[in-house]
């Protein structure tokens, strides 16, 4: 299916701009008719990808640090691309360390990181990693049309989400 619209953003790779990226993603997803839960999932996935850029992509104190966001708006899905040009993220290491909490470990051994990529992969339908001069995370969330139609018909949306 062809892209019907395309939104592009370039934001400073600073903590205070992650919320801006999140709210923009929320606005785009809302316009497409995603359910409340799906919009919240998309917000978290975008914030996690941007947080990785802010925390890991660039040398501290380096100027011109940016995160690039591209939203490909398709009929049946939203494709979100978050990219940096810092070259500092070791994506293979992040992927290796991702995962949920292992409750069999002692509390002192619990990892405080690794949840970001795990959440992205859990909340989105498809996730790809590419990288050359930086890392590019390509995430897709499909639009569940049945749910939207049910909502428009006034049939309980709660039923469709259980």
């Amino acid at each position, binding site marked *: 299916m062809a892209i019907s619209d395309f939104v592009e953003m370039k934001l400073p790779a600073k903590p205070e701009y992650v919320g801006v990226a999140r709210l923009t993603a929320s606005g785009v997803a809302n316009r497409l008719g995603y359910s409340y839960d799906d919009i919240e999932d998309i917000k978290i996935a975008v914030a996690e990808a941007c947080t990785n850029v802010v925390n890991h992509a660039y040398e501290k104190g380096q100027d011109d640090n940016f995160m690039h966001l591209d939203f490909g708006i398709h009929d049946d899905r939203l494709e979100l691309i978050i990219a940096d040009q810092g070259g500092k993220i070791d994506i293979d290491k992040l992927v290796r360390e991702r995962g949920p909490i292992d409750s069999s470990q002692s509390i002192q051994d619990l990892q405080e990181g690794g949840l*970001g990529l795990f959440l992205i992969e859990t909340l989105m339908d498809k996730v790809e990693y590419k990288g050359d001069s930086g890392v590019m995370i390509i995430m897709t969330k499909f639009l569940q049309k049945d749910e939207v139609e049910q909502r428009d018909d006034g049939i309980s949306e709660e039923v469709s989400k259980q």
Partner: protein
Amino acid sequence: MNLDIQLQEGPQRNVVLLSGEVDVYTASKLKETLNPLAEQENKELVVDLSGINYIDSTGLGIFIGALKATEKSNSTLKLIGLNERVKKLFEITGLNEVIDIQANDAREEA
């Protein structure tokens, strides 16, 4: 896009009331509040999340850090007032198995 933190300190129990959003921007403020409280010996640390409408892995990481600190100081950590969305994140990540959590519907009356 902000986080409001209120603290009620007591002899046995410290209660932290949060409202707003916990993300990479607001997380340092939360960490600075929680860590010293979690390091106090033999105390109950209760964090009320009923005013939180957004949290992501940065926030979850801070609670893992607080859990470690409370264990070291022979204290306990309890999170209360989680809404459905926030609870979902604790469940997906498995954090609900290591942190004492009470969702919104089971919240104690203050």
